[in-house]
Structure formats: C-alpha cells, structure tokens
C-alpha cells in the first residue's frame, strides 16, 4: 500500500510537463546514441550531463535515466539490421536478430525487440519499486564498517565480473581511488596531491574524468583507426512488417519473462550488468529450448530473451545505486555523480529524505518505457539512418560537447585541460586493455570509502579488526573475496573442461556467429 501511495505521488511528479519532456528527450537521445557505434550509454550520459545544469534534480535524473534505457533499445536496432551492435549489451542480439533480417524478418525482430524491451522495462521497474524500499530498510541499520565492506564488495564485483582480467580491473579501481584522494582531506583538513593548483583543492571533478576517459578516450582510440563509412543496406520491410505474428508472440512470451528476471537480478549485482545478463539469457534460452539448433539461425527467442535481459538490467542496476549508494556500473556511476552534484546523497536515507524524488524517478521509468515503445516502432526507419552520420562530424560533436561540458562545470578552462589529460588516460587504458569502468567507480566511491574506513577505525580506537568482528561486515567481505576468486576458479574449471572435451565444447554454448 505504501508503495502504491508512493507511486501515485511519483506519477504526479513524472507527469508534469517539464518531466515528461525530459523523459522524451532522454529516450530520443538515448536511442540515437545507442544506434551510433563507438559511443555507449556511459559516454552519452556523461556528455549530456551539462545539459541538465540549472534544471531541478528530478527533471535532470529523469532525462539521464531516459538516455540510459533508450540507449539499450537503440543498440538492438543496428544489431538486427546491419549486424553492428551500437553497444556491448546488444552484441548477442546480432546472433539471431541479423539472421532474421537476412531472412526478410528484420521488421519482426525489431518488433519483438521493442516489445521485449517494453515488457522487461516495465516489470523491471515494478521489481525495483518493490525491492528497493525493503533493501533500504535493511541498509538503514548499517554502520560505517558495513558501508565500507559494501563499497569494497561493489568495487571487487565490478572488477571481477565486469572485465576479462581481474588484476587489470583492480588496478583500474585502485587508480580511481588514488584520484579520489586529491584535494582537501575531509577529516583532517590537510591538502593532498594538489601540487599547488588551487583548482584541485575541491578534488578532481568526476564529470570531467567520466567525459575524458569514456567519451574523449573512445574518440582518440577511434581516430587512430581509420573509420571509414561503410555503405549498408537498411531494410526492415516498412512499418507494417514490425508486428510479430501470434506464433512469434507465443514463442517469445516466456523467453521475455525469463530474460526480465535474469536481467534484473544480474543488474542488481554490481559489475554483472546488461552485457553479461544478455549473454546469460541467451545461454538459458538455448538450454531450455526443445529445438536449440534453431539458435543462431534466426530464432525469435534469441532476440526476445537478451533484449528483455539488457533492458531489465538497467532497472536492476538502479537498485544498489539508489538504495545502498553503490553504483554497479559505469553508467550508474555517472548518474550517481549527477545525484551528488544536485545535492542528493544516494543511500537508504534517500527514500526518507527525498521520497518525492525517488518515486518520481520510478514513475518516470514507466512513462519512459511507454515513450520508448511509441517512439521506437514508428521511427525505426529514421533511427536506422542515424548510423550514416559522417564520422568526422560525429567526432566534432563529441569533442565540442566534451569541452563545453567540462568548461560549464566551473566556467574554467582548467577543467578543459583536465579533460584532455583524462582523454589521453582513457586512450592509454584502452591500449593497455585496462577497463575504465572500475576507475570511474573508484573515483566516485573513494571519498565515501575513506570516510567510512576512518569512521570505523575511530570508533574502534584504531583496531582494524572492526571490519571482521561485525557479522554483516564480515559476511560482505567474505562475499567480496568469493567474487574476486570466482574468475580464477571459473578459469581453472574451463581449462579442465577443455582438457577433457577440447576447446569446441565451451564455444559450442553460444553457437557459431555466422554471416
């Protein structure tokens, strides 16, 4: 009942004209960004953050959330039509989506993708709405030691699950934490690592780092490669061909539901996110199917499950960020940074102190899902043309918005210089195959982690045992250790399996990528 009342209040906020417009703009821009290869949701949210300056917090976050889940759908569009995923969570959609397009069923695949995204987005928000307040109640009893352990868990799971090399991902997280120590120490008031720059006293702005390492870093990496426009034939058969038949709907109903639940709970887990959930959903669908041989050859379930999963994951990823104050992905880290910029502190108290904001955001996610469905089906042809945008112009736009975004933070060119430095850092990280997402998370969580760490030690009079003497904190730290060990154990398992069955056995699960 409390949730229902909250949601009604939320709709009163979300349906205000300014917020409706923000959701519309967010979904539209998100879809366009999702279509464009080389610029993902995280770059989009970071780049467009400055556009929210001067807007109320709820309006801004509604727009950023719209960009986030709009990008998830946009990524599917090019995956299906031209076998080029706009972002990593849509890679698995190419396996069957593109095959359907080659068979002249591209429109149906797009329709299934849109419906799956809508169903998953809506159920995902419902799950978030039910789960988040309950999680917040539990989290309210946490002290600094538990909060510190939770942040360690967040960083280690992102490092362990979100990349191929745990050591490199942990290095990235440590670099982020190091950057977070720049500026005035909140406890002692001492100045650290500012090297005489007054501009660094307040620390390094997260937004500058996010735009630099994600947007500009990607651009630098792409400029090094010659990006030539490839002429592609885009044919989905027109608006009428977007509607799936009853047989398609019957076939994809349960995959959508399974994908939704897989996606939501994978999204809740820091680090797992949309990409892993879409692969997981594909593997599950192939396993439960009575005709697994159809997968990879244009099975509609192979589109419905992963598309539902990656959209539900966006709702799931909001849970740890809003409730525990732990962003589980780079995109939610940017949204987290935006919340801090607007004076909102994500965490269990957000549900008490800013209930209007939280419920307004939840309600706007419903509204956004309806908007996406209405936008995406009729405008599919328009979105598909976006992929033809000349790359030099796209690069110019990204550089321009990066510079304006960085400058607009403090109306200072110092941030622009920092932006270029972090652009180079992002490029170097990509060259060294070090993932950038843990760095962003480390930078966001760094000050909070240090505060929780020092508060815990002050309370225990300097005893480091405080983190293992409290049962919840100990449990969370053990879980973090397990997550860190997981990739190594999985690697050993895969190696043994390959030794027994040959390497083909492992690759078999995802099927061959043809065409």
């Amino acid at each position, binding site marked *: 009942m409390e949730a229902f009342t909250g949601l009604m209040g939320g709709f009163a906020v979300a349906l205000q004209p300014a917020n409706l417009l923000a959701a519309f703009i967010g979904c539209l821009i998100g879809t366009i960004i999702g279509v464009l*290869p*080389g610029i993902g949701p*995280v770059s989009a949210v970071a780049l467009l953050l*400055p*556009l929210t*300056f*001067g807007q109320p917090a709820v309006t801004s976050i509604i727009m950023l959330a719209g960009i986030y889940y709009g990008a998830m759908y946009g990524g599917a569009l090019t995956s299906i039509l031209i076998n*080029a995923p*706009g*972002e*990593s969570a849509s890679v698995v959609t190419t396996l069957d989506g593109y095959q359907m397009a080659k068979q002249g069923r591209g429109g149906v695949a797009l329709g299934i993708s849109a419906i799956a995204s809508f169903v998953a987005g809506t159920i995902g928000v419902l799950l978030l709405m039910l789960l988040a307040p309950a999680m917040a109640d539990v989290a309210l009893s946490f002290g600094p030691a538990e909060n510190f352990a939770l942040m360690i868990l967040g960083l280690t799971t992102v490092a362990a699950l979100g*990349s*191929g*090399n745990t*050591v490199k991902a942990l*290095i990235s997280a*440590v670099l982020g*934490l*190091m950057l977070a120590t720049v500026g005035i*120490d909140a*406890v*002692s008031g*001492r*100045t650290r*690592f500012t090297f005489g720059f007054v501009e660094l006293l307040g620390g390094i702005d997260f937004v500058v780092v996010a735009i630099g390492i*994600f947007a500009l870093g990607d651009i*630098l*990496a*792409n400029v*090094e*490669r010659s990006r*030539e426009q*490839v002429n592609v034939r885009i044919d989905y058969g027109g608006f009428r061909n977007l509607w799936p038949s009853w047989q398609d709907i019957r076939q994809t109903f349960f995959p959508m539901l399974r994908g939704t639940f897989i996606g939501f709970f994978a999204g809740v887990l820091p680090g797992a996110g949309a*990409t892993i959930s879409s692969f997981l959903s594909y593997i599950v669908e192939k396993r439960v199917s009575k005709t697994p041989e159809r997968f990879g050859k244009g099975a509609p379930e192979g589109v419905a499950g992963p598309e539902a999963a990656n959209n539900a994951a966006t709702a799931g990823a909001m849970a740890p960020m809003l409730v525990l104050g732990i962003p589980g992905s780079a995109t939610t880290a940017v949204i987290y940074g935006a919340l801090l910029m607007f004076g909102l502190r994500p965490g269990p108290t957000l549900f008490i102190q800013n209930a209007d904001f939280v419920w307004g955001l939840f309600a706007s996610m419903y509204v956004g899902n309806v908007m996406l469905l209405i936008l995406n089906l009729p405008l599919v042809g328009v979105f598909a043309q976006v992929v033809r945008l*000349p*790359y*030099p*112009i796209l*690069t*110019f736009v990204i*550089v*321009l*918005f990066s*510079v*304006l975004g960085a*400058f607009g933070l403090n*109306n200072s*060119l110092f941030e*622009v*210089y920092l932006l*270029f430095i972090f652009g*180079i850092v992002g490029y170097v990280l990509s060259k*060294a195959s070090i993932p*950038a997402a843990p760095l962003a998370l480390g930078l966001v969580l760094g000050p909070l982690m240090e505060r929780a*760490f020092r508060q815990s030690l*002050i309370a225990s*009079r*300097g005893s480091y045992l405080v983190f293992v003497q409290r049962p919840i904190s100990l449990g969370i730290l053990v879980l973090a250790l397990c997550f860190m060990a997981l990739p190594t154990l999985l*690697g050993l398992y895969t*190696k043994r399996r390959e030794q027994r069955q040959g390497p083909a056995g492992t690759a078999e699960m995802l099927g061959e990528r043809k065409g």
Partner: protein
Amino acid sequence: MEPNANKKRDVWTAVVLLALAGFYLFSTFQFSPGGSGNLPTARTIPFLLTGALVLLSIALFWQNRFQQIKRPAALSEGDDDEALLIEDPSRLRLGLFLAILVIYALTMPYIGFLIATIALGVLLLAVVFRSVSLVNFIAVLALTGFSYWLFARVLSIPLP
C-alpha cells in the same frame, strides 16, 4: 594482436604502474599526516593504495612472466563497433588530433569560443579526416552556432 606483444605491453604497464606508485608514495610524504596515536591520518589511505598498486603491478608482471595460456579477453565497452570499422592504425593522425585539441584549448581564451571552435572543426575535417566538403563545413558552422546558443544563451554559461 600477437600474444607476445600483449605480454610485452603488460610488462611495460606493470613497470609504469610501479613508477606511478613510487611517485604517489613520494607525494604522500609531502603533506603532513595530521591525526594522533594509532588513529588513521590523511596518509593512511594513500599508504594502503600505494601498497595495493605495488602488489597488483607485481601480479600483472607475474601473470605475464609465468602464464602459459592467455584467456581470451572478455567483451568490453568499445569492442562493440568493429563491424563498422576498417582498420588502418595511424599514430600520426592521433598526434595531429591531439595537437589540434591542445592548440584549441590554448587559443580559445584569446580568440573566443566561436572562432576557435569553427577553426577546430575545419582543422579536424581538413587535417585529421581529410573530408572537407561544403556540407561538412556547413555542419560545423551550424553545430558551433547551435552549441553557442544552447550553452551561452539558454544555459547562461559564460563562454570565452
């Protein structure tokens, strides 16, 4: 990329990270720690982070020194767009791009946002991408004008 090149690159990464840890530690000693007794000070976290970076750098080095089989890298952001690309690595293009960005940032306070940005666009098209056309030039002008209107007029950000 060749596995050996990957290994070599990782070894160099480990060396650079160790140097970075050394510099960070040196800088940590440049500020006073504050605090008293065995309670944590402003230096506590930097010390712990230095230790962590050193350990992880050694682990990275160790991975490449002793690991026989390299696992395939997992999918990460930025790996998703290969289908639309035709590879032609060129450090020169990157160098030119960076040089133009630096010139842009340094000259903007003197010549103003509008002129600097139009010059940036034209230079990017002409020097980096070699795709000067009337349509692209008009696009640069229009985008510069639009962004100026949006940021300077609508969002009231005082651009140079």
